């Protein structure tokens, strides 16, 4: 060196963390991508239509007109109407109205002319429900119940006792050792699992594609010399996680709002808690999986290779999905609800069932976070070692053993 030594130029400060810049680009690239926007809008539309149908059904009221000739029958129909209002039925409510006529013949004419749906008559031998064809099953059921109750109450009074005394000890209580999963919890759990599975797969493949595209177009050489690889990885994972969670919040929020207008309004408040847990677990499980997906993208050098490098991951995601859905209640379910990724489906399901105590999801979350951090490290290593491979796919062994540093 012949020229006198000078001081090197000072390092310029970074105005914002590189991962933020990368994450913002991932988000902006998606939000301006027509395919992404259209598919999100279509999903919103589908959910909107389903919700709309529920709301319309909930507000629909059908009226059953029952012809009667005396006060006893009229009182029974009024009782049925009151009972029907308290019992929400999928597909809307039914009102029961009476048409009072003077004679049995007039009532029969009403039914024959379709001016009444049925004719409720009471004679010395008991009750008769007459319709042109068989009256609606719910009408038969409700009328039968109310008539039975009233008649039994009358009979009991005549025998000097009460209906309650007669009924004592007839209830059959059902209990299970494992705690039964209610139909609703199963349905909600299935919906959660499906959402998680679908968005983990679609976003996962998109993350892998976005990594391999940068490799394929070689912009990666500019990126990897300007910012640390770990920041690039974090940015990609976090940007896509934000998008996926945003989509989930949109979909589940829309679903809950829709439910609150339907006949299930009463259970929305109890579901909201499960949904919040679901989103938290989704966030953790998705971020952990996303790192592995990014690494699987880095192991491929062309878009065509992604299928080969990400195949095992698709299997893992699928197995997690089915394991969570079909594991029987009990010990196995409890154990699996702590396993990362599987826990993202199972733990919210157990919470929806109400058979998990508060600290169980917390522990499952911590396990998932630890797994996520480990995956970030592993993903980074795979990413670094395979970033500059531009031909063919890299075997896992090559990816681990790489010596070139970035």
């Amino acid at each position, binding site marked *: *060196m012949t*020229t006198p*030594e*000078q*001081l*090197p*130029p000072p*390092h*310029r*400060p*970074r*105005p*914002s963390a*590189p991962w933020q*810049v*990368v994450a913002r*680009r991932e988000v*902006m*690239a998606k939000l301006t991508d027509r395919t992404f926007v259209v598919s999100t809008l279509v999903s919103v539309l589908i959910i909107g239509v389903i919700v709309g149908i529920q709301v319309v059904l909930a507000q629909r009221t059908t009226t059953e007109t029952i012809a009667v000739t005396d006060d006893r029958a009229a009182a029974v129909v009024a009782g049925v109407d009151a009972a029907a209002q308290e019992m929400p039925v999928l597909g809307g409510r039914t009102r029961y109205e009476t048409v009072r006529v003077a004679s049995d013949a007039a009532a029969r004419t009403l039914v024959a002319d379709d001016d009444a749906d049925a004719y409720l008559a009471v004679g010395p031998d008991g009750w008769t429900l007459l319709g042109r064809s068989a009256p609606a099953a719910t009408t038969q059921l409700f009328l039968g119940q109310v008539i039975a109750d009233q008649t039994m109450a009358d009979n009991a009074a005549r025998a000097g006792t009460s209906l309650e005394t007669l009924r004592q000890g007839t209830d059959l209580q059902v209990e299970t050792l494992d705690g039964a999963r209610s139909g609703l919890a199963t349905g909600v759990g299935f919906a959660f699992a499906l959402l998680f599975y679908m968005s983990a797969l679609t976003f996962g493949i998109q993350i892998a594609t976005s990594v391999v*595209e940068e490799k*394929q*177009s*070689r*912009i990666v*050489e*500019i*990126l*990897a*010399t*300007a*910012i*640390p690889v770990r920041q690039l990885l974090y940015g990609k994972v976090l940007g896509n996680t934000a998008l996926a969670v945003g989509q989930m919040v949109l979909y589940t929020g829309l679903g809950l709002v829709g439910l609150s207008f339907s006949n299930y309004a009463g259970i929305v408040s109890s579901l909201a808690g499960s949904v919040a847990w679901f989103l938290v677990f989704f966030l953790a499980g998705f971020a952990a999986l996303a790192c592995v997906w990014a690494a699987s993208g880095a192991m491929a050098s062309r878009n065509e290779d992604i299928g080969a490098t990400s195949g095992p991951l698709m299997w893992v995601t699928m197995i997690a999905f089915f394991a969570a859905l079909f594991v029987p209640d009990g010990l196995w379910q409890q154990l699996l609800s702590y396993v990362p990724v599987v826990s993202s489906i199972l733990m919210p399901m157990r919470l929806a069932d109400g058979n998990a105590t508060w600290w169980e999801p917390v522990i499952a979350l911590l396990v998932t976070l630890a797994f996520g951090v480990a995956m970030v490290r592993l993903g980074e290593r795979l990413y670094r070692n395979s970033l*500059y491979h*531009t031909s063919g796919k890299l075997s896992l062994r090559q990816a681990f053993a790489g*010596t*070139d*540093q*970035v």
Partner: protein
Amino acid sequence: MLALHHITRRFGAAVAVDDVSFTITPGAMTGFVGANGAGKTTTMRMIMGVLEPSAGGLTWYGRPLTRADAEDFGYMPEERGLYPKQRILDQLIYLGEIQKMTRGDARRAAIDHLDRFGLAGRMHDHLEALSLGNQQRVQIIAAVMSAPTALILDEPFSGLDPGAVDAMSEVLRTHTERGIPVLFSSHQLDLVDRLCDSLLILSHGRLVASGSEDQLRAGAPHRYRIRVSGDAGWVRDVPGIACLDVDGTTALVDITTPGAELTLPRAALDRGDLYEFARVVPSLSEIYREVTA
């Protein structure tokens, strides 16, 4: 200044770069020439930290070059590539931010450079809509827009039309005037000749010549052409010179003993008329051919 000290890089048994040392001076443009596979790209990748040297070290202003130093360098990789499906201005802003610019600064610098390369009207187009030459210009902008502390450019001129070459030279000159070192590789020797203050010639992984153009020429043999009235065959017997070629009345000679050139005109005049006696200055391509032979 950026210095390489005995840098070697092996890929398995193959030696891509073999014990190379050189210095790139701030404020100067250094041309990096050599045949395909001579090791230029590997050397540049080691400067940028993309590859680790197998042996040797790099220094930046006298201390070891760090990754943080290289993050402030502008780099144009041999393998070109940006985001084909993203708008030009958007991706330049992104690449500026990656290179520590604020969003606003990146935007201003991108628009300014696009304007300089005559691409201001295309800034909202997708990159893939541009011709390859224009994509190359965008790539160059990505390397220089953040006012880096050094420029490492792998074949920046390949594929550019003469107008773009001029615009590019102009841009590079503004950066050397800022006092940063600029290293670029090229196959176009006339261009290197025209632009560079200093030259590095690489052949089969080894540095075979380096220095300014004048230094390289000074290192080349002193060559003279002589044209006389009679047959010039007698020059073969003049001591201190090596005769390269005799063609009738004309001869081309290299001076092997300094001062021997002074005896030639006199010897010619003793035998007849002397029509021409002139120093032959080798072109850069001749020097290149000689040192890489």
